[in-house]
């Protein structure tokens, strides 16, 4: 069990933070070891969860942040209008998925996968801060490489890129693979 006072201080710090609070920063402020602070945050998150409290503590984008209980969303919506009512189009989501899994990646490579020029989708994602430039590829024309931002992790509730489900999960039906060659050759001609 972590000292109650440490947990109480951590709760105060989380309350004033408007971004995920990193373990390192929290540890520096309370002057305790990161291990101790981590334990404190985990216990705190547990307290909130078990108490089914209106405030919940989640681990996101490599830090810790307080959120409202997701079940209370309809009530909160009566009080504030969501900041993120802006939807992402399917085109933007596809592009984001490609960047998420294939980063760092150039616009041309993204277009190659989508089968269509994706400059507009990339520009829109940049403007939203969901992706960022990550240097240039060492190839003719040295095109810009893109990758996802911290904001991407936050908005999608991911702690790190490792939390993205493995791409293999999205393969079209693998059972079908055997049928490929056979079905194709002949029927294509009809």
């Amino acid at each position, binding site marked *: 069990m972590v000292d109650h006072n440490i947990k109480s201080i951590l709760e105060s710090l989380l309350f004033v933070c*408007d971004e995920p609070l990193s373990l390192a920063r929290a540890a520096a402020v309370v002057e305790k070891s990161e291990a101790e602070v981590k334990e404190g945050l985990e216990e705190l998150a547990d307290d909130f969860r078990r108490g089914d409290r209106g405030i919940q503590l989640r681990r996101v984008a490599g830090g810790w942040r307080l959120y409202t209980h997701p079940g209370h*969303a309809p009530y909160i919506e009566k009080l504030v209008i*969501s900041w993120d009512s802006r939807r992402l189009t399917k085109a933007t989501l596809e*592009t984001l998925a490609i960047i998420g899994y294939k980063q760092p990646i150039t616009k041309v490579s993204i277009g190659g996968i989508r089968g269509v020029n994706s400059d507009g989708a990339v520009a829109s994602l940049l403007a939203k801060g969901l992706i960022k430039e990550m240097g240039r590829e060492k190839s003719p024309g040295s095109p810009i490489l893109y990758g996802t931002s911290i904001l991407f992790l936050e908005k999608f*509730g991911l702690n790190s890129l490792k939390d993205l489900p493995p791409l293999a999960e999205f393969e079209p039906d693998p059972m079908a693979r055997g049928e490929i060659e056979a079905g194709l050759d002949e029927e294509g001609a009809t």
Partner: protein
Amino acid sequence: MPYQVKLEVFEGPFDLLLSLISRHKVNIYDISVAQIAEEYLGYLDEMRQLDLEIASEFVLVAATLLEIKSAGLLPRPRRIEEDDTMTAFEQRQLLIGRLIEYRKFKNAGLALESRLTAERHFFTRQAALEPQFDQLLPDFLAGIDVQEFGVLMRDLLDRERIRLIDSNHIATIKISVEAKLEEVITLLGRAKRLFFKELTKEGKRSDVVVTFLALLELYKCGLIDIRQTDVFGDIEIIKSKIN
């Protein structure tokens, strides 16, 4: 069945191809190129008729499909004169490979979307710091260029616009609009002006909607004038001077 007027929006030629394939309930790997090519061309025609901008990529895929189709009608290549161009078979394999790859990311995009939807139920705190701590903040304007205000403002105005569209939900109407309409007319007979907040002070959402609809109707009929001085401000209702 409602008549489908609107063409589906496709995110690119691959998306359109995939959709055609799934309509036939065939496996990507079993595409009958001939049939798909015809439908694809038919679709391009429809798009042209609707005067929509057709991306050159759509035509490129159509050309590839046609090439595969026509090559399939000819006798098998003997593989004697090997040239640089891909055989129809190779093109087909390439197209299928790319379609599979595309579908993988399309699926991943859908998964991201559902994550985003789930995340919308979590709200963070948006309040300013308590005054005693606010004073301690480093100069928050340091390094800010005045140009950034323009960008911020544009973003805000976009957001506002989208929100206004988003809030177009229609609630079940329990109180009749007519009843409300009469109520407003009666009240206007007594008072010179009414305020929307006053009319809807019970605060029930359905009541607000009905009152709003009633006011729109009265306004349409020219019976009232409506004034609202600022966004989300109270709405003032006055008897129209014409009547």
